[in-house]
């Protein structure tokens, strides 16, 4: 039976998380001698992008009624075409809204926030994030089918090109309960959860007017920007940048924390970053205990200098 995967797109464009989910599905399929079937709703991007990560087949759902996102209607659409007993989703906001509804429709087990390839396939068992990154749970599916959502940036994208084929599915799902009125996507801004490098700053920056140097460093590195909770509470930065236990959980390759104390609630959202750099004027800041590299010093002097030096490196 094929391994199914939900390849999420935003406005028709595949998300990086979709490629990661396809890579994950491919890893399962290879273990099991199976194929990968990707499901996509109204994509404009080419299916070639999914073949590159191992999708043998792409089911393109064409449905005018699904132009705007609706968790329930999308779950219905996926339910109509997904015919396997393992279905992989990325753990994005949209996909992780659809997955629980689909789990009920299919009477499958749902395991969210998977961190690695499964430990076993029958029964399906996988390590997942728990206690906001302060613990790891080994979760086992009891039902005959399983839906698994893959924590973003945890498994990674793995190229694994196959020669795939595409099939168009014309559906007309009823979507009467919700209607998208407006959709605002800040263009050109890197998505925090997908970013490989994140430059983050806290109350140590003293005020929103000082964020220019954080943005300069981020731009140079092709990084997204983030902040601690008090910074977004006071309104120096938007809520969407707040990382931590009650904000976003992220796992970039590099997390640079500037003027952030490293409170346990902050760490909970960032401690699965692969490399952590902490810059703080207080040598006793708890964050140093959870960092790979640390600099004790004044951010206002260090950040501009660091930016210059990285610029020099990049030539």
């Amino acid at each position: 039976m094929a391994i199914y995967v939900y390849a999420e797109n935003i406005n028709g464009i595949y998300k990086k998380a979709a490629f990661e989910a396809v890579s994950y599905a491919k890893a399962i399929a290879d273990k099991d001698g199976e194929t990968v079937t990707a499901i996509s709703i109204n994509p404009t991007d080419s299916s070639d992008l999914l073949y590159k990560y191992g999708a043998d087949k792409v089911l393109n759902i064409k449905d005018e009624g699904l132009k705007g996102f609706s968790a329930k209607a999308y779950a219905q659409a996926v339910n109509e075409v997904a015919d396997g007993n393992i279905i992989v989703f990325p753990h994005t906001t949209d996909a992780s809204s659809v997955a629980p509804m689909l789990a009920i429709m299919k009477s499958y087990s749902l395991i969210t926030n998977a961190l690695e390839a499964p430990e076993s396939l029958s029964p399906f068992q996988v390590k997942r994030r728990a206690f906001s990154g302060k613990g790891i749970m080994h979760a086992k599916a009891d039902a005959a089918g399983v839906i698994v959502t893959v924590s973003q940036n945890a498994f990674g994208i793995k190229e694994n090109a196959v020669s795939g084929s595409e099939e168009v599915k014309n559906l007309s799902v009823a979507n009467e309960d919700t209607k998208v009125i407006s959709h605002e996507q800040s263009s050109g801004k890197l998505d925090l959860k997908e970013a490989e490098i994140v430059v983050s700053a806290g109350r140590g920056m003293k005020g929103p007017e000082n964020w220019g140097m954080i943005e300069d460093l981020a731009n140079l590195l092709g990084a997204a920007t983030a902040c601690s909770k008090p910074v977004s509470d006071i309104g120096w930065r938007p809520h969407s940048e707040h990382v931590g236990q009650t904000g976003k959980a992220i796992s970039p390759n590099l997390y640079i924390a500037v003027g952030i104390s490293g409170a346990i609630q902050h760490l909970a959202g960032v401690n699965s970053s692969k490399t952590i750099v902490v810059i703080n004027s207080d040598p006793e800041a708890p964050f140093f205990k959870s960092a790979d590299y640390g600099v004790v010093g004044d951010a206002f002097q260090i950040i501009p200098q660091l930016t210059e030096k990285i610029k020099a490196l990049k030539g």
Partner: protein
Amino acid sequence: MKILVCISSVPDTTSKINFTADQSAFDKNGIQWVINPLDEFGLTKAIKLQESAGATVTVINVGDSTTEPVIRKSLAIGANDAIRINIEPKDSYSVAKEIANIAQSGGYDLIFCGKESIDYNGGAVPGMVAQLLNQPFINACVGLEVNGAEATAVREIEGGKETISVKLPAVIAGQKGLVDEKDLIIPNMRGIMSARSKPLTVREPVNNEVKVDAVSFDAVPARAAVKMVAPDNLDELVRLLHEEAKVI
């Protein structure tokens, strides 16, 4: 208008997370329990609707008797009454089934949940409840206006926001923004006193099926000791990031 608010009782956010010696379960020793911080946004929004639209607010918790302090706190914040389903939760599905069972006959116009609970991070109960009730579901909700049998919801999406009109009844999973952090209600003495006499009904579970087992838990492996770099030697930091960590 009738509102049901789902409340989960979770370890206080400063808790050190430990597991039992055989690693089969979370070690509850010495843990302080709080209302799941993400649920507080829904609860506060419900209380605001109670004040502005005369809504009645019922909180529901699936949990054994140890969760009652957290339920009482929700009543002190302003909920009218509470229901506790007397079972220790085992997975998202079993929790969602119990909530949906109560909601089925309750005629609620809105059901609020938090986007996820900060203990098991399932993020699954709200969507499951919605599907079990065949209701629309808005996840990661950061704004809500109710107008009669409809509501306008704003949800966070990656890199932006989306505004949606939704027919009630509906299930809303909230997070920061649904109400402002500064508007979260801290119970006052009057609230605490009146909470003691508000009805808290205990019901027995109707479902004992689980679909996911927690086989075991691991602590997160500790990071190697931090390498400190002198502030006047940032060339070294750049070298380490480039050559050792290979991240820039």
